[in-house]
């Protein structure tokens, strides 16, 4: 489920990257590549687990599935948080700088 959740996030962000005019400004490529990197790594993890468990891999216990879904969603949220930090630090539109200078 973690692999599936992360792969869906990677596909969704890639589609947004493709459609968006502001892909470079918004660092959408960075977010998409982060999710793709994690998905590839979990794919390897899944292959090793499948080699160990065989058909049992596809019939996980409900408790494990729920835990993995929560983990997957948390991973997606963490990815978004990392992306937001990158966006705010690079601040391509100068929004953060403007907000801070108004306060000062």
């Amino acid at each position, binding site marked *: 489920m973690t692999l599936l959740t992360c792969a869906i996030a990677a596909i969704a962000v890639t589609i947004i990257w493709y459609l968006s005019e502001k892909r470079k400004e918004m660092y959408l490529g960075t977010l998409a590549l982060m999710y793709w*990197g994690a998905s590839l790594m979990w794919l390897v993890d899944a292959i090793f687990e499948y080699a160990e468990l065989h058909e049992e891999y596809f019939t996980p216990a409900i408790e494990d599935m729920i835990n993995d879904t929560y983990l997957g969603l948390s991973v997606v949220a963490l990815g978004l948080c990392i992306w937001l930090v990158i966006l705010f630090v690079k601040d391509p539109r100068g929004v953060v700088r403007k907000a801070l200078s108004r306060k000062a």
Partner: protein
Amino acid sequence: MACFLIPAAEAVITTIVKHTVAKKEASALPAEITADESRLRFSDKLGWLNNMLWGGSALLAFEHVWHGEVVPWFPFLTNAASPGTAAEMLHEMATAGVSMAVLVTLVWLGMVGVSHIIENRTAANIKSENKT
């Protein structure tokens, strides 16, 4: 267990390589830059690999924290506490960890190959347009 450490180690190396390549590209002659305007710089392409490796390692590290395999106290990896589990952990790093780094790198090489083909086509189109 600690498989994410191998892609993270690769990410450190590729980040250093990226900065070195970017410095070399910045100091290149202006004529060389204008001739290659339609192409992406190699340091940009290395950035793709960096993003995949750093992002993937960070998200996998979170998974290990979730499962209690990474802790905020020494030795930070719960499996490193005893020799038996440490050997198991090292085995997993050598198999799953290395496979992760290899797969991500292979996918990146595929991306670089595809981008190279697209860049060549674009350059050929520009040349044919200029001729006509």
